[in-house]
């Protein structure tokens, strides 16, 4: 055995942090210019009254909100719809949540994997209507599975510019973004980086679902400004 000690705890020097933060802020600056190629005028129209706030946020200054403060210890309910919640979190607005009266049944990764595409999407939309719940410790396995699906199967399809389920991919991107914010796990943020870097032709298809797309872009913009990766 050449290695005497186990893998050490994260001991990233401050210098690494600085280099990383600079790069992420550069990406934020890039996003300020690039978002209009993804979220087109047509998409913005479909966002209705939220559109000006989304446009202003994506092109303007950043109002960073620390999601660690928002991270939950118990299951939470909200009145807004899932797309509204995602955009609100992304914009750093105050989120109207309340502790849930009951906790939903355990959703195992094995059961999740058994679901077909359509049913999987429905299950995710129902279970994570308040998307912050995906950050709960009880949901860690599902979060890992979503990350795996995005970074293996979905990534491969988008890289090959093949057909993909826009709802499914965008929902996963949004939930992974929420996980990145609550867990501060750089792997989750990097999945968003990776998808943002995919060929424009594949990303253009995401415009079919403007609400989820706006949610993802706002969440991504928010995360790039977080100081403590």
């Amino acid at each position, binding site marked *: *055995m*050449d290695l005497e000690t186990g893998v*050490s705890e994260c001991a990233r020097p401050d210098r690494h942090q600085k280099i990383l933060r600079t790069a992420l802020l550069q990406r934020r600056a890039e996003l300020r210019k690039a978002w209009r190629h993804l979220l087109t005028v047509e998409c913005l129209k479909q966002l209705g009254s939220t559109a000006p706030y989304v446009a202003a946020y994506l092109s303007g200054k950043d109002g960073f909100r620390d999601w660690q403060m928002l991270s939950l210890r118990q299951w939470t309910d909200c009145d807004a719809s899932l797309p509204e919640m995602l955009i609100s979190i992304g914009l750093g607005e105050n989120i109207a949540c309340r502790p849930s009266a009951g906790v939903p049944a355990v959703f195992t990764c094995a059961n999740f994997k058994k679901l077909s595409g359509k049913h999987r999407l429905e299950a995710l939309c129902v279970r994570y209507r308040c998307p912050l719940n995906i950050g709960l410790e009880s949901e860690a396995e599902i979060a890992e599975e979503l990350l795996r699906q995005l970074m293996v199967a979905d*990534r491969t399809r988008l890289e090959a510019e093949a057909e993909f389920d826009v709802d499914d991919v965008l929902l996963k991107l949004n939930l992974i973004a929420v996980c990145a914010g609550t867990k501060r796990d750089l*792997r989750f943020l990097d*999945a968003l980086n990776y998808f943002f870097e995919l060929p424009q032709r594949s990303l253009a298809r995401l415009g079919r679902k403007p609400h989820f797309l706006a949610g993802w872009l706002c969440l991504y913009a928010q995360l790039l400004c977080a100081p403590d990766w």
Partner: protein
Amino acid sequence: MRVAVIAASLAAGIRIATEVERVPSVDVSIVCCNLEMRSPLIRWLRECGLALKSFRWQTYITKLWAYAHSGKLVILNQPLDDPTTVERLRALQCDVGLHAANVIYREATIAAFQLGILNAHIGILPGYRGRSVAQWSVLRGDPVGTTVFFIDGGIDTGSRIVLRAVIPSGENTNVRALKTMLFDCDARLYRKALEALTSEGFAYEYNDISHGKRYYVMSRILNEVVDTILGSRTS
């Protein structure tokens, strides 16, 4: 101990076999795969190109002849998980396979080797499973290195670790150079792993995956961050 190098090319197979055959009591074969099911012409042109890049011709021909002549060179035309291939692998009656083929193995292929197939993974397990782990290690300020372990059906989840080696990133100023350096350690580390396996009182280390994470291919932006970190380290 009977060992087979499962290689994506003859050049890779001979490179690793040359190192591994230095271990006393190890009998080495080379299994050359046709991973992308190339046509014979393309396949052998590629082999010639790789051989020219890697070896002096004389060494290459001598080694190739020696392995072929002693019946220890297996050229596969079918995929590794094809039943006929699995049967051919079983017939070799090897204890250990050495992974050098850039492929994910099915259970049947792994089971064709008595102890299993060793993989030289360019990350320290159990902390760093999956892809781009050298870059993630640098980014997180953790040791860079290689783990030689017996694979299973999962991604770097095989429970039996033979050795872990911390390999300083040294003068490598970018990700590509770092990964090349780490990949080039495979032959030496396979030799050390086989030495360990054949030594008296050897015990595996347990790859406890609950103490690590699975990583995925890294984005361009974070690769650039790692390049900057590596560059600034040596400047």
